[in-house]
């Protein structure tokens, strides 16, 4: 019997190739960590000087007027908040409702139509939505609500709702789909109607996934830039009461996008804009960590129940 059938000459070369490729693949695997680190590093590097250059009391002030050296970021934060809250007031009920419809009620053909449609909305560039917001939505709002201008936080909220919807619908729908069929069958067998089953059994069973969907939707809304910048009127006023929804507002993202092109790099204004970017980065980090923590908790609970 032949002891060795391996082609001996090719072997070292193959090993060498294999080692190089494996190493390259491994390095690529770690690239995501490197990039998150790099992004944070550059935001801190360019943004932290602002903390020294501008007194803290001014930074948390109520006036954003960079030309005269007023860098109060509260109006921008409140602008982002009110636009996002308005967007969620629309996107959460419609998003979860649509997800419930697709996953629990819709006949097969309707599902086949709805899912690509929602994906389509997710693919529309936000600048296109902003463009239609300027031409159609804001004139409509001005007339319908009899406002001095249609370029308001409300217009931004409505567009943001459209932008957050695909995220909410698709993730919530996945979560509802993942609920075992036996849960529903059990409820139906006990005499519940399909409606009672949906609300009493399926939705509570999927609640962590639905919560994740909502949080990622909020993340998308806070981070959205172009559509919001185009329709909110960009007035940096503190938005504290409900009426602010019907007045112009300015978000953190829109401020960066609108002003970064015109500042000298290295100026105080430049550093403050990076500081706002850092704040946005930390907010998105918090939202995403919270969203994945919910998923993780759900998994451990499921494991406990099943064991």
């Amino acid at each position, binding site marked *: 019997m032949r002891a060795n059938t391996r082609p001996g000459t090719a072997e070292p070369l193959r090993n060498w190739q294999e080692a190089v490729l494996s190493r390259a693949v491994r390095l*690529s695997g770690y690239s995501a960590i490197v990039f998150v680190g790099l992004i944070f590093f*550059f935001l801190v590097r*360019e943004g932290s000087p602002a903390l020294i250059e501008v007194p803290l009391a001014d930074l948390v002030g109520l006036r954003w007027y960079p030309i005269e050296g007023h860098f109060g970021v509260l109006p921008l934060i409140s602008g982002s908040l009110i636009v996002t809250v308005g967007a969620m007031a629309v996107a959460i009920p419609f998003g979860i409702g649509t997800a419930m419809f697709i996953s629990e009620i819709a006949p097969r053909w309707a599902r086949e*139509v709805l899912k690509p449609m929602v994906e389509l909305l997710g693919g529309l560039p936000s600048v296109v939505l902003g463009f239609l917001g300027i031409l159609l939505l804001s004139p409509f709002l001005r007339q319908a609500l009899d406002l001095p201008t249609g370029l308001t936080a409300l217009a931004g909220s409505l567009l943001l709702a459209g932008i957050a919807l695909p995220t909410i619908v698709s993730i919530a729908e996945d979560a509802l789909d993942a609920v075992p069929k036996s849960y529903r069958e059990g409820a139906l067998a006990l005499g519940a109607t399909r*409606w009672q089953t949906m609300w009493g059994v399926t939705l509570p069973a999927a609640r962590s996934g639905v919560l994740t969907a909502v949080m990622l939707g909020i993340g998308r809304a806070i981070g959205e*830039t172009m559509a919001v910048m185009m329709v909110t009127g960009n007035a940096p006023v503190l938005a504290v009461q409900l009426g602010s929804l019907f007045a112009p507002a300015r978000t953190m993202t829109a401020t960066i996008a609108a002003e970064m092109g015109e500042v000298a790099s290295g100026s105080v204004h430049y550093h403050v804009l990076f500081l706002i970017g850092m704040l946005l980065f930390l907010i998105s980090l918090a939202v995403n960590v919270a969203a994945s923590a919910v998923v993780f908790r759900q998994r451990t609970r499921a494991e406990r129940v099943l064991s």
Partner: protein
Amino acid sequence: MSADGRLRRYAAGGGRRILTQRLGFTLLTLTAVATVVPIILVVVYIVIQGAPAISWEFLSGVPREGMRQGGILPAIVGTFYLTLGTAVFSVPLGVAAAVYLAEYAQENAWTRLIRIAIINLAGIPSVVYGLFGLGLFVLFLHLGTSILAASLTLSIMTLPVIISASEEALRAVPQAFRTVSMSLGGTRWQTIRRIVLPQALPGILTGVILGLERAAGETAPILFTGAAFFLPRLPHSPLDATMALPYHLFVISTQVPEMPIRIQYGTALVLIAFVLGMNLIATVVRSRARARRQW
């Protein structure tokens, strides 16, 4: 209480419950309709309003008269270059990272950290990517506002989409394929290269196209890294700034007074045709692969 009475009460309750269900279903149906109808209207409206502007001159000419006349070729070509540049950097890196996660990585703390990093990359606001690109590529690496700097910025933004989709596609390939290949003497890399990657290719391709579609439509990341307000010629090198469709639409709808509405809708139509065309290709790739798949 008599059995008869109880039954009657139950029946009445049942009627109410059925009524509630019917109302509820109607309400949810209306919700779904209210979500989807505006999407269709938006697309149809842009097609109707934009179609009259589309002509050979519009698609192949340069902007004239302060962009109020002429065509949008530099913006179309610019978006094409940016998309291509994004693909050059993000596809090899993203697919390699997915191969690592699906084929090499053990479930340990480092791998969890990689996954958290990917989720966070996906959640970072696009304008923050713009800031990062400005800080690293434009200023620190002295690439200037250029196609190269913008493409690099867009690639990092696209990376999480490509990694997640590719990893899912790789994991969907049955384990038996790998076992058979290795038992026939294939090395790990040969198995990945010859067996796993080809099988996962359609899934990877779909993810890549969807990621690039998002990059093509983005404005905020290229605002300060590569987009030119007005540059009525085609870019000569990767170090040139360039016009791009999304930024051009932003410019002509907010920054240029007395802009003819026809050209604005025409530009919007070309942009969504570009983006939705990629979406369509991805859908076709996916459905054809699904039909042909043997496992």
